[in-house]
């Protein structure tokens, strides 16, 4: 800056300052600041993990029209059977197709998780196509899904925002009319992150203004922590709480008491 000023000063001395010099300087300054800001932002969570090329979009469109268009419409505009996919973003596609929920095997209360029907490459192509239709959440970067955050903070956020449906240990739970919150054990950090951002099916959306990317990272950390560490209380019995524990004690606890009573009172032969 000082150099420029000195240069300007010299120019002024020389009396040969171009009338547009100030404008040019402002434009250069703004450009630099904006560029630097964009670069910093790009390292954040909002950037796409995979760079999608035009050929990916074309391949994705073909895959879409062959496999998805019968329900979602030829231009992904939605039909009576399925919602529009314009603006759902790459994250929604990566979650729904990557966990095998889409394409659905049959219509029902809820799309169920099953073996993924497409390879990760095909999923990425589909995601690139859907992302090209309108702006939406992109696939999260590895640094927010790797589970290297604060498990204690994640546990608090999980208890407030997630535990009422997914169970405090992430074992899942029932919802209304055949719907359910799936168990979160064995789900990759990427898919958990994508589910939070996109709100698949009846799950509400937890956008970055509600739970920050760092908070989401902490939640993933917590879920990975409880899966990696055994429960101090012994057998979890599916972590389902009173139902599983009650069933166990009624059948095995009471059963053994009945068996012992029969043995004690039976006559010895």
């Amino acid at each position, binding site marked *: 800056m000082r150099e420029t000023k000195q240069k300007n000063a010299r120019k002024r001395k020389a009396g040969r300052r171009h009338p547009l010099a100030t404008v040019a300087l402002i434009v250069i300054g703004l450009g630099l600041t904006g560029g630097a800001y964009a670069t910093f932002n790009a390292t954040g969570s909002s950037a796409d993990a995979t760079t999608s090329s035009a050929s990916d979009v074309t391949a994705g469109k073909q895959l879409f029209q062959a496999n998805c268009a019968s329900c979602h419409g030829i231009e992904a505009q939605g039909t009576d059977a399925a919602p529009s996919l314009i603006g759902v973003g790459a994250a929604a596609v990566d979650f729904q197709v990557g966990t095998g929920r889409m394409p659905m095997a049959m219509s029902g209360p809820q799309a169920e998780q099953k073996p993924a029907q497409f390879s990760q490459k095909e999923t990425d192509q589909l995601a690139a196509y859907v992302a090209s239709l309108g702006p939406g959440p992109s696939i999260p970067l590895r640094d927010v899904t790797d589970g290297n955050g604060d498990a204690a903070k994640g546990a*608090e*956020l999980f208890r407030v925002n997630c535990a009422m449906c997914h169970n405090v240990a992430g074992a899942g739970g029932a*919802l209304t009319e055949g*719907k359910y919150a799936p168990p979160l054990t064995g789900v990759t950090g990427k898919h958990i992150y994508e589910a939070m951002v996109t709100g698949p099916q009846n799950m*509400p959306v937890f956008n970055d203004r509600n739970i920050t990317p760092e908070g989401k990272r902490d939640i993933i950390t917590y879920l990975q922590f409880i899966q990696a560490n055994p429960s101090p209380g012994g057998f979890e019995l599916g972590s389902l709480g009173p139902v599983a524990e009650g069933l166990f004690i009624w059948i095995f606890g009471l059963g053994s008491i009945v068996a012992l009573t029969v043995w004690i009172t039976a*006559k010895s032969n």
Partner: protein
Amino acid sequence: MAQDDNGGTEITPAASSAVDHRPGDAGTAVIVQDAVENPGFPPHRARITDKDPRKQRRAERTIYTLFYLSIVGSIWAIAAYIAFPIESGKISDLRISTLAIGLGMTLALLAIGFGAVHWAKALMVDKEGIDIRHPVQGTDETRERAVEIFQEADAESGFGRRTLIRNSLIGALVAFPLPAIVLFRGLGPMNEDPVKLLSHTMWKKGMRLTRDPSGTPIRASDVTLGSVFHVIPEGLNDKEDALDQKAKAAVLLMRLEPKDLHPSPDRKSWAYDGIVAYSKICTHVGCPVALYEQQTHHLLCPCHQSQFDITHEARVIFGPANRPLPQLPIEVDADGYLVAQSDFHEPVGPSFWERH
């Protein structure tokens, strides 16, 4: 043992099964002729341990082996305590230690139990006998003597004669528990009307809606379509009775398409552009209702499966709750943050005496 003046007789059943064993002594008032003949006891059957000395020795071996096993279990539990230290503080170590100690102690106790029962069943004398139930009433002499004792005591102490002393003693005994009642009253809320406490929450006009647990304020633009925010009032975390206040003031914030909402005329201004706020405390027994389905807009209570329809002012569509969830009127302040218009217009949570 209670003194038994009536004398207990032990009757050994006869081998024949057709004998009526009911005795006609003082305890039995009326002997009815039973329509069904008492089949009596089955004939006595000797145990194999009584017949075969080898089996008897085998049972003996089993029993003392069980008792020795119990000793092994006790030593095991001590050894496990030493062998599996928990000083590392790791959950897995704690779990192994608890499991090993528990197995040892289980073996120790169960083996004693099984051994004792097996001893009684297989080796102890196998003689069937009946102890006839004794009449509860004492003999006439005992009863008369008891009355005499009371009369003597009354005469000697003057309890019935000196009425002033007697009445003052009764008064003293009645007064003695009174301090306890007054002291226990001190545990309850003082100088506060519980009805008023239950009817109001800390929400008031202009108070910002903030995120649970961080307490950061929420802009209307943060709440995108399909979002759900778990909300606490601004400044709740600084309160001394934060948990008590949270139990009443917790709120669930959702954004729906404005066309999906069907508010009654007087509640039209309670929402902001499809953003609605409802009490999170179930009107049934006060569980946190937070299982929100973003497509059906149903809110499910996990405790007793009450369902509330957010599109129709959280009316009850299923389950035991009998009132809709109270709605918190909200608006947006000059800085774009969501604020409450007022407190809830009705008490939140389950019924109490003054509210049905």
